[in-house]
């Protein structure tokens, strides 16, 4: 018995060691990348006017702070989160409606397929004219990009419910509503969580694309503006902030996922 225990301890030790190694290498890559970038810029191997550099990004951050950095971040974050929430909620509701009605699903199928393959950016001018050249247009763009994928993926999950389980519930005399709430919806939670993750990425695409088209503030605006006046420091800095925000939002969704995996319902 004693030998077995120590073997297990060895396993845990090895396992932990491996995890630490992975994190160390991950951090090292980041440091090397930033260090090399800075070094190359300092030694003028590359033209830091075009490539910027970590120190210039930090300097830019300081400047931006005085010029309403929080307003830009707030604007983009607001558009992205609202777009994400609306498209996820509305898309899921539509998916449930399509699951409920065979007829509706068959009727709408070709429309959804066409809308899915249509590049939503093509609708940009129409959106601007219809809803106005402000944050509403950007949210609209985000919703358009996310909602079709949400509907298709969620519906796919709902429809993939085990026929045998549906038969079991019907044989117990369950109503369609009971089949939905007790079987189909709880069974589709994994699909829903993966849809959330996909939507985080897509919501950022929609928001930034929307800001490229029309905006007076926001990170997308800063990137486009920086590109136009050839201020690559501004472009790089905004991109770095975007990376950071997208990561934070992804981890928030990961937390939601962990919450769902822990409880039964």
């Amino acid at each position, binding site marked *: 018995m004693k030998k077995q225990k120590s073997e297990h301890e060895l396993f845990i030790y090895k396992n932990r060691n491996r995890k630490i190694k992975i994190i160390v290498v991950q951090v090292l890559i980041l440091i090397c990348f930033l260090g090399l970038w800075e070094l190359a810029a300092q030694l003028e191997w590359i033209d830091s006017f075009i490539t910027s550099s970590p120190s210039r990004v930090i300097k830019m951050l300081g400047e931006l702070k005085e010029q309403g950095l929080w307003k830009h971040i707030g604007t983009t974050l607001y558009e992205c989160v609202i777009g994400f929430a609306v498209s996820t909620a509305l898309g899921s509701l539509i998916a449930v409606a399509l699951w409920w009605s065979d007829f509706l699903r068959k009727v709408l199928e070709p429309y959804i397929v066409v809308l899915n393959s249509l590049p939503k950016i093509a609708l940009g001018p129409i959106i601007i004219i219809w809803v106005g050249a402000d944050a509403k247009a950007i949210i609209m763009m985000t919703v358009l990009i996310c909602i079709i994928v949400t509907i298709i993926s969620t519906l796919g999950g709902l429809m993939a419910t085990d026929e045998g*389980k549906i038969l*079991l519930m019907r044989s*117990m005399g369950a109503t369609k509503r009971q089949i939905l709430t*007790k079987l189909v919806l*709880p069974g589709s939670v994994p699909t829903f969580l993966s849809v959330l993750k996909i939507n985080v990425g897509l919501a950022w695409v929609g928001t930034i694309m929307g800001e490229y088209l029309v905006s007076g503030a926001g990170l997308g605006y800063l990137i486009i503006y920086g590109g136009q006046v050839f201020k690559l420091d501004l472009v790089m800095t905004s991109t770095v902030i975007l990376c950071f925000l997208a990561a934070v939002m992804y981890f928030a969704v990961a937390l939601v996922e962990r919450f769902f995996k822990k409880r039964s319902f």
Partner: protein
Amino acid sequence: MEILKMNNVSLTYQTVEQETKAIENITLSIEDGEFIALVGPSGCGKTTILSLISGLMKPSGGTITLMGKPVERPGSETGYMLQRDMLFEWRTIEKNILLGPEIHRNLSDEVKGKAEDLLKKYGLWEFRDRYPGQLSGGMRQRAALIRTLALDPKLLLLDEPFSALDFQTRLSVCNDVYEIIKSEKKTALLVTHDISEAVSLADRIVVLSARPAVVKKTFVIDIDAPTPLKRREKSEFGKWFDTIWKEVSV
């Protein structure tokens, strides 16, 4: 007492291409406490018969009565058990077992108490808070049977309930299920293509013909043994197997 009576029941499936006669003029009656097995070539409409009895489908002709009342829709008089256990992975064993009462909005203390008794009696009490993924195949099938029993059905409909299990487990689960059904004094109708399973379990075996299914012959199995496993050891077992096998094949 007569639990089930099927009188000249037939069913025709409609598809765009054609009409298919699945079963024709099935007449069958089951007494209280009987264990009946339906055997027949695969695709002969055995499952269709169970669907009709449970009220999931309506016959195109003939009548089906359960305890003297015609079957209109699925209800708690029949309990359907399928090939796979169909336990919901996100529910604990106890919650799975209470699914039926939950659907009937009847989660009274009495019903819960009965489910608890069943869990205790059949060795799943310690596992009531576990999830199906944490149980072995045999235990899962036992949980599925208890879920069916929680609604206190008069007639159990077993649709090849052991076919998804490996052979070793199948024999012991088969034994298990038989003992539970007998000790709960339930009436059961088993559908299977496994003749040895039918011979080891049933009091009466009904052989069906190929599609459209009609009742070909009925055999009363009189092997004197207390459990399916004991039956398999008896010498008559082989004889009965041969008889039924020949009847199904020709």
